[in-house]
């Protein structure tokens, strides 16, 4: 189940997943932009007190390997593995950031996301795009932080400077400020898609940062013998001298003896985005594509999404958004046409059903779709009155009871007979989903004003609203009279309509069919207008009389009519 985060939202990680071995993927791209995506392990004062916990392209893992940079895979521009259990206690916060290398601003960024994947299932996603930013050149995307256990916060805060400014913000030092590398050699670094960092070979114990192919901007096609990691601000803890600087790809980069040449990465050429070596279809090589990059095999069982080692049939399905890449495998038994090239196909059940997920916002009344409304009783605490039988689903501890009411109201109910639907009173703490025969729902918020609603069109309302029954008598009305409920006060009322309603401003000559009228402002006066036609009716059973409701009222009054006559 993917929980979608908005900027600023926080949640306890244990509410999202019970796993602590997490995969964090970041997708960020913009035309012509190249990004450095890093993770800062901060102490309680939100300072980078230990340089070894700045995880970036030159330092792909923390000493005890609780934080690892995995490179681009499965549609993510950059990905990390975070083993929360083994993060040292001195690290209080893990901040994931993206900064632009070269020219450009965050406003140019296209839609991207930060997502958390646990055990092959995406559990959380924070989506963002450039419209949230202006001239920033870096952004803090999301934080894991400790507060009674780990929590996750979608931060989405921009930063004017680039990576260097971020580093200073966190108290790190920037040792040398090399002129930024000429923004990505054209033709080489495909915009937006950082080529995967070459899988780090497991360094012998004691050896410091492993040699790394430089990320996106680096590949300047010249066999640069000397070090100098071209990407700009080289922080103080530059790779230890022992580690030869990222050899520029293209040249004959011979990996140190004994180091396994990772599949696909050996050539050192930036791989086109989308066919990053982590992408499953391209890497049929058995085993995880990063041999040795993972800590002892005992810790296995960490399936980043879409890796070949990911066992199908676990009930885990690839996170949506992976495109057709994954689909080919599992759907293979179906002949040609069956291969799901369709958009939703890759996501399996959740991919197809994701668009039917209701809104997550915490409001007392939230429309889940045009036909279903969710009332959150936990907000505001006051009971909701709902038409009996309109509950389709509820979560939490909710009691449903008949509306008792006082004697007076009961007497009214009796007097009005069947004109009123029976209501139930929902109390407790939780969420109730209400709907009525797939009719359209319209939450109307009253702020001290009043509205009359034909009684059969009331689905639910806050108990704080006052209501009284109004009866409009007139010869020719269906059932002899029309019952309306006049609501007033402060609160929300949900009205049902069949089809898209029409809101008519009340003029001196406004008429509506009594069968189609839904609601009108209480200030309007309702008259029953009968027209007797002399002409003989075309079909039998017709009384020859047409009955309409006429509305009259002060300017600003309105009447609502539905395209459906009961």
């Amino acid at each position: 189940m993917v929980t979608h985060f908005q900027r600023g939202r926080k949640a306890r990680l244990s509410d999202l997943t019970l796993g602590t071995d997490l995969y964090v993927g970041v997708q960020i791209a913009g035309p012509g932009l190249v990004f450095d995506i890093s993770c800062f392990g901060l102490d309680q004062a939100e300072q980078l007190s230990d340089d070894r916990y700045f995880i970036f392209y030159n330092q792909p893992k923390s000493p005890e390997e609780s934080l690892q940079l995995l490179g681009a895979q499965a549609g993510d521009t950059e990905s990390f593995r975070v083993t929360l259990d083994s993060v040292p206690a001195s690290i209080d916060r893990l901040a994931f950031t993206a900064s632009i290398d070269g020219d450009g601003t965050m406003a140019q960024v296209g839609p991207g996301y930060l997502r958390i994947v646990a055990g092959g299932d995406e559990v959380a996603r924070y989506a963002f795009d450039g419209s949230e930013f202006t001239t920033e050149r870096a952004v803090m995307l999301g934080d894991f932080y400790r507060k009674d256990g780990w929590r996750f916060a979608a931060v989405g805060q921009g930063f004017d400077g680039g990576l260097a400014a971020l580093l200073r913000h966190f108290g790190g030092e920037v040792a040398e400020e090399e002129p930024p590398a000429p923004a990505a050699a054209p033709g080489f670094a495909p915009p937006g898609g950082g080529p995967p960092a070459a899988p780090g070979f497991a360094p012998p114990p004691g050896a410091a940062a492993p040699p790394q192919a430089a990320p996106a901007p680096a590949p300047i096609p010249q066999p640069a013998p000397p070090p100098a990691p071209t990407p700009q601000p080289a922080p103080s803890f530059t790779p230890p001298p022992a580690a030869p600087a990222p050899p520029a790809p293209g040249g004959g980069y011979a990996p140190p003896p004994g180091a396994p040449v990772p599949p696909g990465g050996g050539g050192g050429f930036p791989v086109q985005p989308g066919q990053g070596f982590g992408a499953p279809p391209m890497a049929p090589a058995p085993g995880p594509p990063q041999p040795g990059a993972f800590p002892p095999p005992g810790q296995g069982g960490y399936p980043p999404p879409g890796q070949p080692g990911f066992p199908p049939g676990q009930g885990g399905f690839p996170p949506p958004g992976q495109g057709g890449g994954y689909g080919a495998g599992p759907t293979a038994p179906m002949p040609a046409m069956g291969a799901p090239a369709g958009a939703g196909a890759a996501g399996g059940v959740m991919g197809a059903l994701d668009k039917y997920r209701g809104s997550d916002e915490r409001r007392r009344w939230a429309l889940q779709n045009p036909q279903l409304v969710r009332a959150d009783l936990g907000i505001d605490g006051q009971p909701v009155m709902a038409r009996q039988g309109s509950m389709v689903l509820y979560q939490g501890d909710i009691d449903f009871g008949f509306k008792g009411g006082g004697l007076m109201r009961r007497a009214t109910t009796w007097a009005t007979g069947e004109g009123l639907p029976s209501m139930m009173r929902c109390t407790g703490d939780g969420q109730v989903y209400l709907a009525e025969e797939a009719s359209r729902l319209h939450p109307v918020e009253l702020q001290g004003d009043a509205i009359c609603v034909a009684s059969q069109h009331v689905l639910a309302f806050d108990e704080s609203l006052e209501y009284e029954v109004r009866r409009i008598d007139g010869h020719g009305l269906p059932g002899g009279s029309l019952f309306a409920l006049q609501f007033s006060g402060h609160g929300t009322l949900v009205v049902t309509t069949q089809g898209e309603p029409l809101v008519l401003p009340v003029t001196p000559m406004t008429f509506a069919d009594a069968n189609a009228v839904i609601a009108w402002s209480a200030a309007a006066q309702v008259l029953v207008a009968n027209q007797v036609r002399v002409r003989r009716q075309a079909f039998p059973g017709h009384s020859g009389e047409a009955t309409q409701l006429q509305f009259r009222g002060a300017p600003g009054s309105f009447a609502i009519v539905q395209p459906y006559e009961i």
Partner: protein
Amino acid sequence: MDQRMTAGFAPTAAPTARMENHGSTMARVAMQSGNDLFARSGSMVAYEGYIQYESNPTALRQAFAGRLTGESVPLMKCTGDGLLYLADYGAEVVCVPLQNESLSVNATNVLAFDAHLEWGVQRVKGIAKFAGQGLFNLGISGTGWVAITSRGIPVVVDCGRSGEVCVDPDALVAWSSGLEMKGKRSFKASSLIGRGSGEAFQLAFSGQGFVVVQPSEDSTDRLNAQQQN
């Protein structure tokens, strides 16, 4: 006739997947011989190509045997090559690809599914005699496509985050198979949900997964209702 009036409703050129939506209330299935389909009887609205229908196949009847009395088998087997258009009285149609997953669908909400999928009639323990309509559902699993219908736009609700999710059985469409489900009756004299029966039934789901509900308590089987008339 001015063809432009209807041009917008022509099917898209070539199917890209086994099942697709044509509009929100119609499913289009790309049929191939050897890849049969079970569809709700009477749900075919049009087809192109050479497709044959066999209703009440023997195998099906056995699968349904002993379930409920007096109900006909609501599925037909479609074989052949071509394009098959299915709909169910204007209900919303959702085409779901299963990838080695399983799904439980309320039998009235099944429109079609690939014949090679594994499926079986499931019964919910303890609530077999469900308010009038004998709740039974199809458990479908494997890799392939399922089309489900919903009266109104459905909503997917996650379970597990907040304990139990209680659903009006009339509004239930489908749920992920991993969920634990039990009938819940509230005997409190004051609670009168449902259709005024005096007893309130809900299905309580717990565990990790999701539930799909429709915004309508209309669970009438259009097909059977028509036959009875």
